[in-house]
């Protein structure tokens, strides 16, 4: 469903992404991990072209996202790829409900009443139906991130991307957000998730990609990766993570 073909990207002379060849199958949950600066976030941001690439192709449902296309086509593609940010990026001038209504209504032309019904159902699903009229500043970090997930789901995307969805949260709020993502995985959503939550990766991921210096060094099932990592860099990363 999402396929990276010989993807390269440079920041100046530094290879942000180098020779990425990988694929996320439909219904698969891939957790991308690795040390900071390894290119995880850059990789996930290239999927909906928030970042450009230097060469190669990224196919989403068989279509190259980085091909030359009109902005209308690109917007259409983007609306089919849910994206959740580390810093939530809710629109602070809109209530939780209006954050979710805005895009189905304005981008997909869904009627206001229908968009509102869909938004309320999604708020209910992430456990925040009672906070529908709260503004982002009145919500906790965990609540904001759950609204952000609902906002992305409102476009009914066939795939979701998560860029460190819990890294900006206080520890006691991580669980509520991961529970929502876990629920999505159980429903068969195709997902790529950049995260440092290793227990979450173990539970939810079908496969783990380990990245360092812009390359995917190792891929495997969570059991194989966490149990017996092959690459020395991955071994060092995991032992660092455990000794924290």
């Amino acid at each position, binding site marked *: 469903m999402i396929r990276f073909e010989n993807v390269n990207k440079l920041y100046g002379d530094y290879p942000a992404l180098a020779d990425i060849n990988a694929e996320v199958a439909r219904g698969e949950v891939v957790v991308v991990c690795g040390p900071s600066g390894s290119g995880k976030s850059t990789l996930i941001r290239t999927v*909906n072209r*928030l970042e450009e690439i230097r060469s190669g192709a990224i196919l989403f449902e068989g279509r190259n996202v980085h091909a030359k296309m009109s*902005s*209308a086509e690109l*917007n*259409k*593609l*983007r*609306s*089919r*790829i849910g*994206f959740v*940010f580390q*810093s939530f*990026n*809710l*629109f*602070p*001038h809109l209530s939780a409900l209006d954050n979710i209504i*805005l*895009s189905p209504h*304005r*981008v*997909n032309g869904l009627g206001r009443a229908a968009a509102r019904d869909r938004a309320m159902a999604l708020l209910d699903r992430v456990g925040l139906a009672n906070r529908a009229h*709260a503004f982002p*500043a*009145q*919500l*906790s970090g965990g609540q904001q991130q759950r609204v952000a997930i609902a*906002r*992305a789901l409102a*476009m009914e995307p066939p795939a979701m991307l998560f860029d460190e969805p819990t890294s900006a949260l206080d520890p006691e709020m991580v669980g509520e957000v991961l529970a929502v993502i876990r629920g999505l995985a159980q429903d068969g959503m195709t997902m790529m998730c950049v995260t440092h939550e290793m227990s979450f990766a173990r539970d939810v991921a079908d496969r783990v990609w380990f990245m360092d210096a812009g390359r995917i060094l190792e891929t495997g099932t969570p059991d194989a990766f966490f149990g017996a990592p092959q690459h020395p860099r991955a071994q060092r990363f995991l032992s660092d993570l455990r000794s924290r």
Partner: protein
Amino acid sequence: MLQGAISIVSENWLLLLVGQYPNGPLGGIAATLMLSVLGIALAFPLSVLIALARISRWPLLRAPATALVYVVRGVPLLMIIFWVYFLFPLLLGANVPGFATMVCTLVIYEGAFLSEVVRAGIQALPAGQMDAARALGHSYPRAMRYIILPQALYNMLPAILSQFISTIKETTLGYVINVPELTFAANQINNRLLTKPFEVFLILALTYYVVCYSLSAATTWLERRIATRRAGPAPLAVMEAAG
């Protein structure tokens, strides 16, 4: 002296308030405020367009907008008044009344200055806002309209109001092309009395001060209100979080 000032006001209050209206053109404070309100109201939409052009990807939009801003910032307002005063009638082939000349000047001048305020407001928003909008599939114009501009303009309200205050003071320069605003009215009184310039111009200064000070106070109040709203958790949310 105080008595002198009071008697000047009591004899000329109508002239200070509305000029020679209804027997002549509207003047006095009424004209000053109308000039300022019209100037800012017309300059504002223009300034949003200039700001959008200034941050556009296309040099064809960016270059003229940038040039306009730099030229206006680098030329005294009085020069722009003269340019409009002498040039517009030539270009239009018709007489342009002083009031209209002054409104045009203010729109050009304030449009350029306000556009820098608007641009700063847009660029001060976190980049994540545009990212989130684009990731959801919004086009650039739609993201601007529904997500970026509403936030930026709300944040910029105090700066826009303070620009309005400077506009009120700038209308005094309309005097040089005989626009019958407040300063013009005061000067008429002074020319008639001849011996009381200190009192007359004290009244003039006080009048401007009162108008501008009340607006400054409004700006401060607005700034506080915005700061409170941004500070987040409303009492209700705090209670729920605690409970």
